[in-house]
Every structure is written in structure tokens, then in C-alpha cells.
């Protein structure tokens, strides 16, 4: 049945396009192929959801590696029995990775790993300094996004998890332990009515802020950094209980493990990981205590020089997965005015 199982001559890698895949191709895949003779077929996707739908509709072994988002997705793949078991002995560079990023993965898949963490970032609050001062942002925190004063100038990511997370923060609850979900929905409704736009991609997020269509939104740390670098006066704030996330290199069940493991190890080589990180403006998952990350990485937003990521909160995969079916569907309605 493994009609499309990768032969040892090639593995398939899917990831985000643009600068990320350029960096991957140039610093990882090409040298890897040169070294091992194994070709890396590189594909792209527009989002994690779309990718999982394609995997589900695909055939066993068709997809091998992917640059996936967050711990939550790792849990989803595990739930769909798509996880594999990495032989960590073949990935010596894993030792350089921040342990706090590895542990949640291990916990989900019962001790073994199906992925290696690769980069991380935060989804904080981005605001236009022309209209909103740093002080005001700091004072209002997540509630800045439900401030009537900015009606019509507010944005937000149209993704249910992020919306609920911020809804929880705005209703003063712990996102990983919501007591009053109705209060969260109400907050989401308030935000919906004040918002001009739910954005759906980094490109949109950047253009909305850059063109001053909106003054405040939550945003991905790397994208905001890119805006700041282009000279836009955008402030960025990780509020109390700020939302962190990581991205990992995931190996799907049915893949040629040895070849994949070798590729993962190769990609965790510091120079490779750093080059990719600089390309996408998100810090690598490498532990700054063990590896010299150079000059640029430490300037990236969300970068934790301690390598513990203690100040950040992550989606609790068990908690969110348990509510996924219900909440994602409810959000779909709430978004449309129900």
C-alpha cells in the first residue's frame, strides 16, 4: 500500500515558502544532498491546517518532513496517529536544543519524539506608536484590543485559538484553564465588533499595520520585527501571560527514518539553524547557553537569552485539544455575529 513511500533516494519536505524555504534550500537541502546523495523534494503549504488536510487526504508515506507549528499541532498529528519515532542517537545536535521546547513534545508522544523543535516566537500586541503610546499599551495590555477608543482601527488574527487565548486574557482568565467560557465569547464578540479586520496571513498583518489601516492588533513577533526594520514605528508588547509558540521539524509516520534523522541533524547544525532564523526573524530553538547565536539573533523579538522561555506561556496541548472540536466550531459562528 506504500505506493508513495519515499525511497532512500529522496525525502519530501514541506514548509513555508518565501525566505524560509530559500534559506532551507540553500543552507540545508543542497549541502545535504551533496553529502548524502539523497534528494530533498521540497514543497510548500500556506498553513498548518491546509497541510494536515492534505496529509489526511494523501497516501501513507507521501509526505515525510514538515515545518510545523506549535505544540498543539504536534498533539493533533499524534491524535491522528501520524507520529513516528525518531532515533535520537542519529541526531546528536538535539543536545543543543532548548530542553523546555523538547519536553512538551516528549510528553505528548509518550517519551519518544516525532519532531525536533526548530524556532520559536510570540504572538504579542503590536500597536502604532503614532497613536498609542508605550505606556498606554503597557497599562492596558491585552485589553487594548477591546478599547472602544480604537473602534475600526483594531485588527486580530482570525484563528480560533488565538482569539480565545486573548479573549481569556481580556476577561482576566488563565487561557490554559478557562472557567467562564461565555465571558471569553463575549470578549471575542466585543473585539469582533470593534475590529476592522481579521487578518489571515503575515503579509496581511504587515500591510494592515504599515498602511495604518489598523493601529492595534496582536502580531507575530518576527513579522513585527520585520516592520520595525523597515522603519515603521510599531511597538510590540508581550503582555502578562504572553503567548509563546514554537515550530518544529516533524517527521511523519511511514517516512525513511534514517534519511530524515540525518537531515534533522544537519538542520540543527548551528550555522544552518542561525541562517534560517535570520531569514525569518524568529530565534532558533538552539540553547544560547550551549551555542553562540551570533549578533543578530539576540536582537530578535521574543528572544530569550536565558534559554528557559520561562516568561512565556504555551498552549497546553491536552487542554486545547480536548476543546478543539467544540471551540473551533463555536468560534466560526461567533465570528459571523452569533
Amino acid at each position, binding site marked *: 500500500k506504500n505506493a508513495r513511500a519515499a525511497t532512500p533516494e529522496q525525502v519530501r519536505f514541506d514548509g513555508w515558502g518565501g525566505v524560509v524555504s530559500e534559506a532551507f534550500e540553500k543552507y540545508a537541502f543542497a549541502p545535504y544532498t551533496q553529502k548524502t546523495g539523497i534528494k530533498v523534494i*521540497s514543497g510548500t503549504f500556506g498553513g498548518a491546517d491546509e497541510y494536515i488536510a492534505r496529509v489526511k487526504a494523501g497516501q501513507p508515506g507521501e509526505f515525510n518532513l514538515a515545518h510545523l507549528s506549535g505544540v498543539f499541532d504536534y498533539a493533533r498529528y499524534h491524535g491522528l496517529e501520524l507520529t513516528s519515532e525518531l532515533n535520537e542517537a542519529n541526531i546528536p545536535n538535539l543536545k543543543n536544543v532548548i530542553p523546555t521546547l523538547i519536553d512538551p513534545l516528549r510528553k505528548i508522544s509518550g517519551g519518544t519524539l516525532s519532531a525536533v523543535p526548530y524556532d520559536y516566537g510570540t504572538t504579542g500586541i503590536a500597536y502604532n506608536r503614532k497613536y498609542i503610546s508605550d505606556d498606554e499599551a503597557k497599562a492596558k495590555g491585552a485589553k487594548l484590543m477591546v478599547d472602544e477608543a480604537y473602534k475600526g482601527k483594531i485588527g486580530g488574527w482570525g484563528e480560533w485559538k488565538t482569539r480565545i487565548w486573548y479573549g481569556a486574557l481580556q476577561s482576566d482568565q488563565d487561557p490554559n484553564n478557562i472557567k467562564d467560557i461565555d465571558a471569553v465569547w463575549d470578549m471575542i464578540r466585543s473585539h469582533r465588533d470593534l475590529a476592522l479586520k481579521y487578518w489571515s496571513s503575515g503579509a496581511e498583518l504587515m500591510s494592515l499595520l504599515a498602511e495604518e489601516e489598523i493601529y492595534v492588533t496582536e502580531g507575530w513577533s518576527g513579522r513585527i520585527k520585520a516592520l520595525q526594520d523597515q522603519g515603521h514605528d510599531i511597538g510590540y508588547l508581550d503582555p502578562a501571560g504572553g503567548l509563546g509558540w514554537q515550530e518544529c521539524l516533524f517527521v511523519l509516520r511511514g517516512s525513511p527514518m534514517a534519511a530524515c534523522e540525518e537531515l534533522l541533524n544537519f538542520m540543527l547544525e548551528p550555522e544552518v539553524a542561525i541562517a534560517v532564523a535570520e531569514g525569518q526573524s524568529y530565534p532558533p530553538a538552539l540553547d544560547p547557553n550551549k551555542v553562540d547565536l551570533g549578533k543578530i539573533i539576540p536582537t530578535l523579538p521574543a528572544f530569550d537569552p536565558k534559554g528557559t522561555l520561562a516568561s512565556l506561556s504555551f498552549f497546553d496541548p491536552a487542554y486545547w485539544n480536548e476543546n478543539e472540536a467544540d471551540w473551533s466550531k463555536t468560534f466560526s459562528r461567533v465570528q459571523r455575529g452569533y
Partner: protein
Amino acid sequence: MSGWSMIRIATILVYLFLFAPVAVVILLAFNANQFGGFPIEGFSLRWFEALWNNDAIVRAFKTSLLLGLLTSAVSTTLGTMAALAMVRYDFPGKRTISTLLVAPILIPEVVLAVALLLFLQALSMPKSFGLLLMGHVVFTLPFVVLVVQARLVSIRRDVEEAAMSLGATPVQTFFEITLPLMLPAVMAGMLFSFTISFDDITGTLFWKPGGVETVPTQIFAMLRNSISPEINALGAVMVIFTIALPLIAASIARVMSARKLRASNRKTQTA
């Protein structure tokens, strides 16, 4: 003002409306900033240079072009045949088939995409460029069928009959008489299928085999990290080509015919 000049003005306005986003994209392709919006702050060719050096986009562009051309060739052929059957013959079940031929655009593409993959899964058939092509053919087919049908009904039957009475087989009659007379519709069908294929995202995302990217999927994947104006530059290059090629061709033709005319004038003068 005469009715005709009002129509002309209205037409110009509609074309301007159609071109507005194109113009914006082209302007931004020359913008030095990645996010500038208006007013544009600096002029630069860096995105064109970047485009030139961006193998991935260039490769995706070639794939899209090939896919679009093949799709339009196959789809226009099949669609024209089907339209011919629908208009020129009476047979049982015509209405059902008519609906069936339009069905591909009635189903949300993502559903069609998944459904087809499920079918392949059941057959254990790998994805391939051929599948992608046929997928595009399926959902461009209705465009061709509809537009060709609409034209075909107004083509007089008796000229076809005349051709056959002169010994042309139905097939020859089609190529000599019917096809030329419905050429505008066939060209329209080709344009439709080409552009729809060239522009498709959802179906392509699901059907493309490993390593194959089209311009839209490439762009879609780039969205997370903000689209690079290289894409704008690509659009600009294509638009300029599209406008320039026919103009160049026309002016070459004009020069040629002028030369021929002059030559023949000379001949008559000396004669």
C-alpha cells in the same frame, strides 16, 4: 454626446476599473520599500533584479504557464466537442448532461479537491502532473462549454450543410466552417481556461505532486512572511509583455504591409 461616444467612455471606465489593481501592482513593483503604499517613496528596480535571481518563482512561473497552456488546450478541445453535441444534436438525457457539464463549478473547490484525492487513495494512485492537469481541466470545462454553446446557437446551420453537400465530412466541416465561425467563443474558452488554471490555488494545493509549485501556491506559501514585491515585479513583467507583444506584432505587420504597398506602387509606376 452621441450614444456611441458614451459607450466608448463607459468602456474606458470599465477597463480602467479592471486595470486599477494591475496598475497598483506595477507601481509597487518599482517601489523601493516593501510596504509603502501611497505615496510611493522611492523608485527602484531591485525587485526585478530579485525576481531575475529567484529560481523558485521563475520555476513556478514556468510550471504555471505550462499547466495553463495544457489545460486550455485540453479543456477547450473537450468543451468545444461537448458544446457541439449539445447544440447540434438531440438525444435523450440532454438536460441532465447539460447540468453535469456545469457541475464542476458548483462544488466548492476544496471539496472537489479532497474528493478526488480520496478516490486516488482508494485506487492507490500517486499524484502526478497529469492528475493536476486533469483536475484543472475538470473545473475549467464548464467555462468553455457555456461560452461555446452560447455562440454556437447563433451560427447558421445551413452553411455547415452547404459544406457537407460539397463533400466535406462532418469533421472537415467543423474545422473549415464551424470552428472559424465560432472562433471568438473558442478563443474566449481558451482564455478562460488558461487564466483560471493559471490563477488556481485551492485545487492545485491539494493535487500538485511533490516538488511542483505554481505561482499561486508559491505566493500562498509566502504569505506568512509577507509577500515580496518580486511577485509584483513578475506581474509587471507579464503585463508589459501582454500589452507589448500584440502592439509590436501589429506595428511589424503595419511596417511590412506598408513596405509591400510601396513595392507594388513602384511596380505599377514603372509599368
